[in-house]
């Protein structure tokens, strides 16, 4: 059984609280990135591509027992790591859970600059897409 979305976020914040340096923080993110796997079809599908000026992100999803499973791919390692982090949080959750979560945890772990709308790395659009999908299921 998965931990809840809030527990996952708390755990993430706790992990980040332990890092003394930016190096540790990025090592952690990059490790997440190294372990991110995705189905082969993702990178072939133009329609799943979330274009950022700096790096590409692909996002797919399916519904299983009222939970949305997200799949995502990316090119750059740090973005991959951030994608993996977002999947840990947002994938395999109900639409309600996804919509309820405030994304201010990103500020607290000190990575929000990567997700600002003015960064064109695809992450902000990915998060927006996740929420749009959840909303679509939620409003039915």
């Amino acid at each position: 059984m998965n931990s809840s979305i809030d527990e996952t976020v708390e755990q993430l914040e706790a992990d980040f609280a332990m890092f003394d340096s930016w190096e540790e923080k990025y090592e952690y993110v990059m490790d997440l990135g190294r372990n991110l796997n995705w189905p082969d079809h993702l990178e072939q599908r133009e329609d799943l591509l979330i274009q950022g000026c700096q790096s590409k992100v692909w996002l797919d999803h399916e519904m299983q027992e009222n939970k949305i499973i997200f799949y995502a791919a990316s090119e750059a390692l740090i973005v991959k790591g951030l994608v993996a982090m977002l999947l840990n949080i947002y994938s395999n959750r109900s639409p309600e859970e996804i919509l309820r979560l405030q994304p201010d945890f990103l500020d607290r772990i000190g990575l929000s600059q990567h997700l600002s709308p003015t960064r064109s790395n695809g992450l902000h659009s990915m998060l927006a897409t996740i929420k749009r999908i959840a909303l679509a299921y939620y409003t039915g």
Partner: protein
Amino acid sequence: MSQLNPIAAPFTTAPVDWNAIRADFPLIAGHDLIYFDNAASSQKPKVLLEAMENMVTTSYANVHRGVHRLSQQATDQYEAARKTVAKFINAADEAEVVFTGGTTDSINTLAFSFGEAHIQPGDEILLSGMEHHANIVPWQLMAERKGAHIKVIPVLENGSLDLEALDALMGPKTKLLSLVWVSNSLGTVNPIPYLIQKAHAYGIPVMVDAAQAAPHMPIDVQAIDCDFLAFSAHKMCGPTGLGVLYGKRHLFEPLPPYRGGGDMIDRVRFEKTTFQGLPFRFEAGTPHILGAVAFASVLSYLSNIGMQQIEARERQLSNSFRQQLQLNFPEVNAIGTAADSVSVVSFLVQGRHPMDVGVLLDNQNIAVRTGHHCCQPLMERFGIPGTVRASLAFYNTEEEIERFFVALRKTIQLLR
């Protein structure tokens, strides 16, 4: 306060210390000059320089494409400026605010893009007889390319629009109404909400030239329901080289781009290039970053004073100017006497060329503008070579108006 802005921010009640405000404008504060040429361009407050200095000293870089912090900070400031402008005109969405090089650039952008998207041979663009050249020539250039025609709402003797002519001028061929809100040569405030409603009833979108409105009154694009609106920063205490083109998203976003280049593209290939949505679609290349950020500071400064206060003050100053002129100078004819006007007073000394009046006032340290004010068709309509135009800003004073009249008296004597 104008009846034309029904939905305006709550009225700030604290009285404004206008003399203290004069001190914010180094050129005004430090000189004996009476500057009554605000419609051409206004003077700049210290906050403008401070904002530029602050960015150049701490956070200048190019925007939008950088992973480094400086670029990120610059981008945040630039995009925050867009938000400030959106709030200032009450746009529904800041993406509807596009930064341009000025009103002229804004109108040219719209004329080109709208023309490419919507104009067929025989179509009509409706303008008025009191437009600034910036709201005539771009449409002419486009109409000539597209085989379209320009129609003109006539101007009445008092300098207001002939509203009775409207119905005859609007029809299925009319693709756009582009209209000045406040006339730069007469001061006339056109009944924009009414005109927009009227055009919309015919299914005609409306572009508003707010170059002389934005400096003098609260603007609420949603309340007046305009489809496009243009203005310049430099006429409202802001930097040169910067303007705004606002457009409702569903009308603006589908238009093809005017300029091509960096930032406005999605994907460039030699075979086929695709474009971004709003606002970047219309902001090709490196924008006027320092200008936009400084303009945001100036808008905060103006909002702090309060646009209602500014409007009230400027209406009071220009009305007082107008009344004294009529009362004490029978040898002077006011050009444009519409009931609703702000800031601008245009006049002629009978039998005297406006330029002579301007030169002699200049020798008495008074800056007014003389000539056609980039409104040649309007001058022809009145059969005059131009006017003497005094245009007042909130930092002007009743004492300056008094000194002006002393100088005008002397000017008229010299010209006898």
